[in-house]
């Protein structure tokens, strides 16, 4: 009886299987965080991250080095996220105006501001959002981002500049209208 295609593939991969599991455990935070910060939904992010790792398993023999693996994961994750958003009939993220304005004290701890910032990041346009995620989560330079997203460096810089201005304006306006308690 002929073996199942999946079982044959696993058999063929042999020692790659163990390496793949190590790669998953090592880089699951990268993939999951990118998806979560981009999509703003843990369940969808987890599903998308699983999809990325399955894709990695299919292409694991083409990975040449550790840096190549990281580059591949960032690139595939960012493109999967963008494809997911484009495939949605209704935009999953909230607009800036729809972001719930919770009261903010001036001496609020970081977690609150971080949560608010994350919500505002998910309200950015798709490409700008991915640029911001890659810049501030992965700490990549505009040149590295341009290679991953396949866009000109100047576009990356422009996205960054506009996104920062928008976020800064939103934060400052929110602080201005906040009544002092």
């Amino acid at each position: 009886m002929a073996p199942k295609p999946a079982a044959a593939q696993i058999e063929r991969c042999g020692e790659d299987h163990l390496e793949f599991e190590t790669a998953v455990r090592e880089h699951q935070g990268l993939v999951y965080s990118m998806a979560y910060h981009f999509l703003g939904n843990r369940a969808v992010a987890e599903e998308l991250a699983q999809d990325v790792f399955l894709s990695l398993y299919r292409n694991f023999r083409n990975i040449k080095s550790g840096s190549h693996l990281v580059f591949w994961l960032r690139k595939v994750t960012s493109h999967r996220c963008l494809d997911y958003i484009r495939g949605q009939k209704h935009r999953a993220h909230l607009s800036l105006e729809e972001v719930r304005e919770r009261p903010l004290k001036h001496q609020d701890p970081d977690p609150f501001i971080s949560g608010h910032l994350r919500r505002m990041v998910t309200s950015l346009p798709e490409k700008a959002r991915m640029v911001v995620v890659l810049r501030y989560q992965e700490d990549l330079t505009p040149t590295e981002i341009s290679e991953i997203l396949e866009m000109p460096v100047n576009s990356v810089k422009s996205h960054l500049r506009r996104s920062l201005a928008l976020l800064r304006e939103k934060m400052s306006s929110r602080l201005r209208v906040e009544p002092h308690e």
Partner: protein
Amino acid sequence: MNSIEEDLKQALRRQEPPADFAGKVMDLVNSGAGLGPEKRPGPNKVLVFRLRPKVVVWLATAAAAACLVGLVITRSYVGDRGRVEVPPPVSGSDLPHQDAAQQPNADQQTAAGPNLGRNESGPGLQRMGGRDERQPAHHWRAGSRRVNAGTDLPMEARHAEEQLRLALAITSAKLGYAQRSIQEADGTNTMDREVNP
């Protein structure tokens, strides 16, 4: 780096997935679920994606602009060709009458002589006689042809020069032939006068 960038770094720091994430992935790999060929958008989906209303509008606008540009280029090309067209050949009947003082040399007379016998008393010479003789030669067909001072001037000038040379040659030959005929006729009359004074 300002505060918002620091806040963003803090907000977007990496987060670990649920504890059983890697186990789920390995289970999927081991079971073979989801390991089929990767899904790619079919041709219909690609077509639908590319033919969104905005794209269609832009395509139609681009096509209309291309047609307009093509039309303008074609028109200007045809206009240029019409301007540099070679004028029709000049016949002797179109030439104005010349003064006898502008006689050509003897070579031109003998070269054009045999061709002029047909027009000796024909309508061509009569028409030539009917023209305004005060009109100078360099005004020939000035009313019917406009000299374009633009880019076609050298070619126009060459055509005009050739036609003028041809016209002068034909005219002088005709005049020479007519003069000889008159002289012969005068000689005959002189003899008649000598015989019958």
